[in-house]
C-alpha cells in the first residue's frame, strides 16, 4: 500500500490543476459569450448584402463579375488555414491541422504552384514540424478579430486575384453550427461562385415590389458588391473560427475539471484506506507489545 503522505501530495497537486482548469473554463465561457455576440452582430450586414443582391438580380441584371467566374486553368492557388494561437482546447487545432494538411496535399497534386498561409501559432508550428513551407503567417488574430485586420488580408487577396497571381483561394476553418457542433470546413472563397451568401439565404419573396432607382447604375453597384461580399465572407470565417475555439476550450476544460474531481475522489479513498491501515497496524503492534509484557 502506498504511503499516505505521497497520496496526499498527489491529491494536492491535482487540486491545483483543477483550480487552473476551472478558471480556464470560466474564462473561455466569458470569451465565448463575447465572441458569440460579435458573430451575431455581424449577421445583419451579410443579410443586407444578400438582400441587395436579390434586389439587383430582380432588376433584370445578369450577375457576372471577374471574381465570380471560374478560371479556365488553375495555375496558382493559395490555401488559408485558420487555427488558434493557444492550445488546451481539445481537438480543435489537431483536427484543423489534419484536414489542412490533407487539403494542402490535394491542392499540390492538382495545381502546379501553391502557397500556404496560416493564422494562429498552433497551425504554424504544426506545419513547420511536418516540414511544410509557409508563405505567410498571422499571429495577431486573437478571440476578437476586427474587420479592419481582416480587410487588409482580403484586399491583398483581391488584388492578387485580379492581377492573376492566384487563380483560386481555399480556406480551412472551424465552422460554427451551434454550441454543440463545430465542423472543420473547406471552402473555396475565390472564385466566389455565387453571391447568395451561403446556403443560409432563403429565397425570399420580393419584399418590395417597387422598381429601384440605381445610382449610378446596377452594373457599377454590382462591381462594388462583389468584393464587399467576399470581404464579409472572409470576415465571417474568422469570426466563426474565434467562436469555435472558445467553445472547444470550454468543453475541453470542463472535461478536465470533471476528470480532476474524479481523480481526487479516488485518491482520497486510497489515502483514507492507507491511513486507516497504518493506524490499525500500529494498534496491533501496541496490543502485541502489551500481550508480550503479561
Amino acid at each position, binding site marked *: 500500500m502506498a504511503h499516505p503522505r505521497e497520496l496526499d501530495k498527489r491529491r494536492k497537486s491535482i487540486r491545483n490543476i483543477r483550480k487552473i482548469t476551472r478558471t480556464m473554463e470560466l474564462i473561455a465561457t466569458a470569451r465565448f459569450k463575447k465572441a458569440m455576440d*460579435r458573430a451575431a*452582430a*455581424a449577421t*445583419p*450586414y451579410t443579410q*443586407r*448584402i444578400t*438582400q*441587395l443582391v436579390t*434586389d*439587383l438580380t430582380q432588376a433584370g441584371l445578369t450577375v457576372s463579375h471577374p471574381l465570380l467566374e471560374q478560371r479556365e486553368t488553375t495555375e496558382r492557388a493559395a490555401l488559408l488555414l485558420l487555427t488558434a494561437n493557444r492550445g488546451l482546447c481539445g481537438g480543435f487545432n489537431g483536427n484543423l491541422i489534419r484536414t489542412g494538411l490533407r487539403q494542402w496535399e490535394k491542392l499540390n497534386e492538382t495545381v502546379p504552384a501553391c502557397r500556404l498561409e496560416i493564422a494562429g501559432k498552433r497551425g504554424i508550428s504544426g506545419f513547420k514540424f511536418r516540414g511544410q513551407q509557409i508563405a505567410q503567417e498571422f499571429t495577431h488574430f486573437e478571440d476578437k478579430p*476586427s*474587420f*479592419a485586420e481582416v*480587410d487588409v488580408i482580403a484586399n491583398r487577396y483581391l*488584388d492578387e486575384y*485580379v*492581377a492573376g497571381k492566384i487563380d483560386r483561394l481555399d480556406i480551412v476553418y472551424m465552422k460554427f453550427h451551434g454550441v454543440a457542433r463545430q465542423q472543420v470546413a473547406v471552402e473555396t472563397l475565390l472564385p466566389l461562385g455565387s453571391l447568395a451568401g451561403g446556403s443560409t439565404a432563403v429565397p425570399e419573396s420580393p*419584399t*418590395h415590389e*417597387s*422598381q*429601384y*432607382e*440605381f*445610382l*449610378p447604375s*446596377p452594373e*457599377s*453597384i454590382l462591381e*462594388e*458588391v462583389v468584393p*464587399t461580399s467576399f*470581404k*464579409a465572407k472572409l*470576415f465571417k470565417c474568422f469570426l466563426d473560427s474565434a467562436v469555435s475555439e472558445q467553445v472547444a476550450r470550454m468543453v475541453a476544460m470542463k472535461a478536465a475539471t470533471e476528470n480532476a474531481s474524479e481523480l481526487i475522489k479516488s485518491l482520497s479513498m486510497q489515502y483514507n484506506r492507507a491511513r486507516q491501515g497504518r493506524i490499525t497496524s500500529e494498534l496491533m503492534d501496541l496490543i502485541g507489545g502489551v500481550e508480550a509484557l503479561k
Partner: protein
Amino acid sequence: MLQCIVVTPEATVLDTEAEFVALPLYDGEIGIGLGHSPLIGRLGYGELRLRSGEETSSYYADGGFVQVADNVVSVLTERCLPITELDAEVAAEQLRSALSRSASGEDQVARRQRSQDQARAQVRLATRAVQR
C-alpha cells in the same frame, strides 16, 4: 418618420428614426426625406447627417451602399463613427502617403485616388468637428 439603419460588418451601429437623412453618394450628397422613391446607391466617403427635430447628428461613412425603400434607409458601410471620433492626424498621414505614392496602371491609380478621397473626407470632417 424615416427609419435609418446603419450596419457595418462588425455591428449595427445605428438604428434610429429621423426626419431627414443626408448621405454621401459616390458623386455628391443626396438628401432623403419622407416618402422617397426606392433607391439603391453607391456611397462615397463623407458625412452622414441625421436630422430629427432641431437636432442634427453627424457621422462619417466609409463607402458602401444605401438602400431606400418604404421609408427605411439602410446603409451598408465598412466603417461608421461619429465625426467627433475621427482622428485628423491619422487621416492626414494617409493623405500624405497616398499623395507621395507612385502608381502605374489603371487599377493602382484608381486605388490611390480612393485612398486620397477617403483621407480628404476624414480630414475635412475631423476639422469641422473640432471647429464646432
